[in-house]
């Protein structure tokens, strides 16, 4: 895919067919991704629905840093905006704008990861990491019990960790696309890679939109 004319793979009839196949492939892949996170959401829901677990879940949730969670949500939503604008720039053949927007998207992703790293470190200092830094005795009062608390925290780490892995991959892809765009690999006739990885980026954002209430907001009952 070095030049516009060389973008057509030999087993496709034309670029339109190839573009459609790429987009469909990404949607199908995202269906798989959805089920990966779906398994986690199901596990989370199954535990939280048990009557005596919800108090522990909410209590543990209130210990997370809602401020960082909120800022990160804004950062990530902004990155979705730059991503959408990048796809538009690609469609219109604006090479410079495309490169800048892809780099901005990667930058916002990196900022998110930076905040997340700070937050993880803070969680560690607050002894919120079962198996590593966690004191069961701290979590034994009223309806709160250490078992459900460590369950909630494990779901928090696995869910946000998996999300972070996806985001890291996304950042690497954005940088690759930016280099390709700089070299002129895309044209208004062939920009499927920007299009499909845009879908991927939005998917990763949408997952975060679900993680925010599940992990951060359930602990805010009665606080506002």
């Amino acid at each position, binding site marked *: 895919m070095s030049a516009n004319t060389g973008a057509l*793979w*030999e*087993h*496709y*009839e034309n670029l339109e*067919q190839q573009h*459609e*196949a790429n987009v*469909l*492939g990404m949607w*199908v*892949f995202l*269906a*798989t*991704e959805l*089920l*990966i996170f*779906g*398994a*986690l959401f*199901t*596990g989370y829901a*199954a*535990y939280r629905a048990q009557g005596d*677990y919800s108090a522990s879940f909410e209590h543990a949730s209130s210990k997370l840093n809602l401020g960082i969670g909120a800022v990160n949500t804004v950062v990530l939503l902004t990155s979705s905006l730059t991503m959408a604008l990048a796809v538009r720039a690609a469609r219109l053949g604006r090479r410079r704008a495309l490169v800048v927007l892809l780099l901005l998207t990667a930058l916002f992703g990196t900022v998110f990861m930076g905040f997340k790293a700070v937050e993880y470190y803070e969680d560690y200092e607050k002894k919120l990491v*079962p*198996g*590593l830094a966690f004191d069961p005795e701290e979590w034994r009062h009223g309806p709160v*019990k*250490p*078992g*459900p608390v*460590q*369950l909630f925290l*494990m779901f928090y780490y*696995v869910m946000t960790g998996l999300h972070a892995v996806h985001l890291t991959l996304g950042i690497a892809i954005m940088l690759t696309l930016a280099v390709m765009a700089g070299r002129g690999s895309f044209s208004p006739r062939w920009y499927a890679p920007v299009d499909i990885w845009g879908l991927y980026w939005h998917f990763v954002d949408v997952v975060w939109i679900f993680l925010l209430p599940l992990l951060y907001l359930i602990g805010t009952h009665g606080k506002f």
Partner: protein
Amino acid sequence: MSIITSPFRPQGIALAPAPGPGRRPVHYLNAAYGVRSWLLTTDHKRIALLYLVSLTLMFIIGGLAATLIRLDLLTPSNKMMHADTYNKMFSAHGIIMIFFFLVAAIPAVFGNFFLPMMIGARDLAFPRLNLASWYVYVAGAVMILWVIFGGGVDTGWTFYTPYSSKSSHTQVLPTLVAAVLAGFSSVFTALNLIVTTHRLRAPGMTWFRLPLFVWSMYATSFIVLLATPVLAMALILVGVERACGVGIFDPALGGDPVLFQHLFWFYSHPAVYIMVLPAMGVVSEIIPCFARKNVFGYGFIAFSSIGIAVVGFLVWAHHMFVAGISVYAALIFSLLSYLVAVPSAIKVFNWTATLYRGSVSLQTPMLCCLGFIGLFTMGGLTGLFLAALAVDVHVHDTYFVIAHFHFIMVGGTVMAYMGALHYWWPKMTGRMYPEGLGRIAAVIIFVGFILTFLPQFVLGYLGMPRRYHFYAPEFQVLNVLSTAGASILAVGYALPLTYLLWSLRWGEKAGPNPWNATGLEWQTPSPPPPHNFAETPVVTCGPYEYTLQEEAASVG
């Protein structure tokens, strides 16, 4: 019988030009030579062969484990291996055969090779992803072999907690990684097959002109895509539990082991259909060809594949009737399990109706398919026993269950795999296998299979539990019968391995269409040229126009 004479050959297909004197035709095998040309290939046909070789190796290793299990079970006590070794052996057998053979077998070899050809495409939609899927598979396979030969794993293929978390001191983590890798390799293949079916069909290849094999691959791919990630996540959670010492599925720490079973079977029950639907697709191709009749009830067979895929997602908890789930849930899952038998039965009736008044010829592929129908029907009907709540409580975790799913997976899928291998061998290699030996092998496999697994139904009904190393002495006669059958089965599998390799060099030249079959894959030379067709075919009729072909032949 080399070139078909049917007037119903789809228009616009030029058989590759006859080679001039002294010039050999270019096909996918001689288009390039050298290790690099294989390991870096993006040709779906070459990748299919890579898969065929690696799957055969895994099948042999899984088969050796089974052999040792059966030898060990010859005697009720005085064992040839230690109980721990026995646990590792049945785990190795299950993990290899399911994750590294059956799930990939037909889609990755025959789906990969023939789905693009059947729909008139030059390759799969994403050739590099296709190659990546093989590498991911190999990475998983190397990892599991490293585990098995480096000490083994004793969790069973089901990885139930706490067997896989607290109480196992074997190499569980790398095993989990290997299974997840195998899963993702199948996801890549499935993604490719779905997009190819949607976007790369030749002109005139409408949905209802698709060969039924393509329909079944399509349904299978959907199951793979939607079920595999759930298994991957469940296994990752077990890995997290082991690695971090936390209790996601540990009741002592607030977790619930039954949740693991739910997540596991949400994949692993549909996985049964991942394994058997492709086999049904193979049978739907072979039966019309060797009965010289249009397939009976095309629409019913096509939609029953979709029906199995959908309902198959809603029956997983029938593996958990004794695991403490609510009686109402058990009731509904029991009912749905009965329901999923309906589309399977539709297929069996349609195949039988296709045979009715056909001019049946009993070549090796057909013998395998007839074997499939018989064994699959027995496996399916005993599945209904297990779907019944009260009976399941009696035979749960006994050899009855073992026999039931081996009838489906070995009697069904492996039998169809053998049929597919013989049916398409001439196309893949350009050579015929020895027909007489092929028929003998098919019969040996059938007899060996019955002798191995029929006694296990009785064993299970009498109460012999699965996975036990020692057993009560009164079960010995049936166990000896089963082991004797397994040795016959081993001969049946070794035979094709030998003569198929032999045929590569000394087999008779096959010609483009030795079976006089109608599918697009037969309208091109054997072995096919690198891009399958000299020019893109234009399709003007359905895939099984045998009746018209036969009439034309008898008139002309």
